């Protein structure tokens, strides 16, 4: 979307002022209505589909594999594929790297431990199904996808199920490969309900004037002065805290007070978002139904 000068200044003036009016009249700390569903891909351990009203859709799958390793950071692999972009495009690579690093830094690897020697290795594959048609000629960078992707990853991880381990967990002495129950009815959650651990989320906020905008829409991104992505995990702000260019149009430096304000905002919105995601996880899905 390329906006006209008049539109840009209209939107900018509306957003930057004291009482900002957003383009779809949301409040500054409100998200657009999202749609999400999980566990709809049969041959994955966990899967989710999230999309927003702009039509940007993100399908995430989690597959687990048993490996023997000592290196914990090997256990999580993230691969982001954006429609119409090459696998090795800057966008895909940087999104993959950011999500992977963020997950590894805030992961409870206990949940992946099978035995003393064996672990589950997770492959998180993320497919961004459709990007706005005029993406190539526009100035937005799509880094705002991070927010959607991290919610998709959260849902996929939380909905992931693993087969029940039947062999012993203590294999320090005995050389034995882990074996599993054949019955899927016995499958356990990757992240057990009683575990306090929650996968991390990344929020993207836009900065304009003296305001912090949550979940900026595409037309807002065109006029924002800067963007920030902020990690959130179990009630705390975590790395990454990184400024991102949401649009190549006209970036500006931002007041450092805004950084504190942004962190404050994310702290506030984190819990409601987690609750909303949890309610999706608790919604019964018909495994054999169609999801579209």
């Amino acid at each position, binding site marked *: 979307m390329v906006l006209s000068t008049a539109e840009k200044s209209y939107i900018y003036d*509306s957003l930057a002022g004291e009482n900002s009016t957003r383009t779809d009249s949301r409040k500054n700390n409100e998200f657009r209505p*999202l749609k999400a569903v999980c566990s709809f891909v049969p041959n994955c351990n966990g899967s989710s589909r999230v999309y927003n009203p702009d039509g940007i859709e993100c399908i995430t799958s989690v597959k687990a594999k048993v490996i023997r390793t000592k290196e914990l950071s090997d256990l999580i692999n993230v691969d982001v594929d954006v429609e119409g972009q090459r696998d090795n495009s800057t966008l895909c690579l940087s999104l993959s790297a950011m999500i992977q690093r963020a997950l590894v830094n805030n992961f409870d690897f206990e949940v992946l431990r099978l035995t003393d020697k064996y672990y589950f290795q997770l492959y998180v594959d993320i497919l961004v199904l459709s990007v706005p048609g005029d993406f190539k000629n526009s100035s937005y960078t799509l880094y705002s996808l991070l927010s959607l992707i991290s919610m998709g990853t959260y849902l996929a991880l939380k909905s992931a199920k693993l087969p029940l381990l039947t062999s012993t967990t203590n294999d320090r002495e005995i050389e034995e490969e882990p074996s599993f129950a054949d019955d899927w009815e016995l499958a356990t959650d990757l992240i057990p309900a009683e575990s306090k651990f929650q996968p991390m989320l990344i929020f993207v906020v836009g900065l304009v004037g003296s305001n912090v905008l*949550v979940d900026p829409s595409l037309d807002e991104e065109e006029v924002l002065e800067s963007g920030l992505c902020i990690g959130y995990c179990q009630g705390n702000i975590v790395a990454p805290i990184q400024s991102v260019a949401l649009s190549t149009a006209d970036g500006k430096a931002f007041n450092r007070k805004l950084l504190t304000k942004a962190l404050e905002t994310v702290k506030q919105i984190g819990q409601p978002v987690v609750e909303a995601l949890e309610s999706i996880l608790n919604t019964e899905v018909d495994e054999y139904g169609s999801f579209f």
Partner: protein
Amino acid sequence: MIISISVPSKPEASDTKAGSSVVTPGELITDDPTWMRGHGTYFLNDKTYSSVAGTVLKVNKLLSVVPFKGRYSPETGDHLVGRIIDVGQKRWKVDIGGEHDAVLMLGSVNLPGGILRRKSESDELQMRNFLKEGDLLNAEVQSLFSDGSASLHTRSLKYGKLRNGVFVAVPSKLIVRAKNHSHDLPGNVSIILGVNGYCWIYKTPLSSAADHSASTAKTNAELSSAASGNYQPGQGSVSITRLEQESSWDIYSDKNDALSASIKDTISRYKNCLLSLSQCNIGINEIRLVRAYEISLGYGDTNLLFREEVRQSIGEDVIAQEKMRGAG
């Protein structure tokens, strides 16, 4: 409420009123060869088949199928809103949401200095100063090319560059064709409902409100002067002088007027109403829009209106009201 995430719901298979007039590709419509075959049909061995999924439309002897969905296809005289996507040799390319981009020739626009002057080479060089990529304008379809693409013109004061407002796109199918597609709405806001589904909601320009009183004053003055017999040349030809005044550089300005917060609030309320109608698949015209606006006032603050369920219920209310009025 910070966030609402919901499971996508399948629209319930409602009473499929899809009667016999609904056809799908490859379906035989008629084997009577006297029908003329319009859009959405094809002809094979004296038989007419449908080529799209839609409803059959019979006008006189013309048989066509109107698809359920599809891009806008322009017709001469349509009032559109479009966005410049390319500046070329003596022409602009305009995105109108159709299958083809429309063309706006340099010769089909009003240029600063009055419409009656010739286009010069310097105009060609400074085309970007008039309209550049991203700019929105409203225009009329002047003619169609053989492949169905449109050539536009803005040679009237009601057409031209758009300012002081917001852009909303809805499916072109929903815009009800009418004589007039630009309306002044309650709340000092105006709207252009482009036939192509692109709409522009903006602050009612001062001149159009003032114009009424000014023109009546003028005619009064003219009447009196005519009565007194002091006729002066050029007196009756108001339009040309006005054209010259308004064809200054101002018409290509990028600067918005000062807009008060309340105007902006009204504009975003209308935007949400428009999107409510679109979400509910309701044909959009001025009356329904105003009705939706009135209903939305009952829902309180503007910043509740982005929610799906609120939009849905505004749409339902519009339909319900219409039924009531129809019955009464």
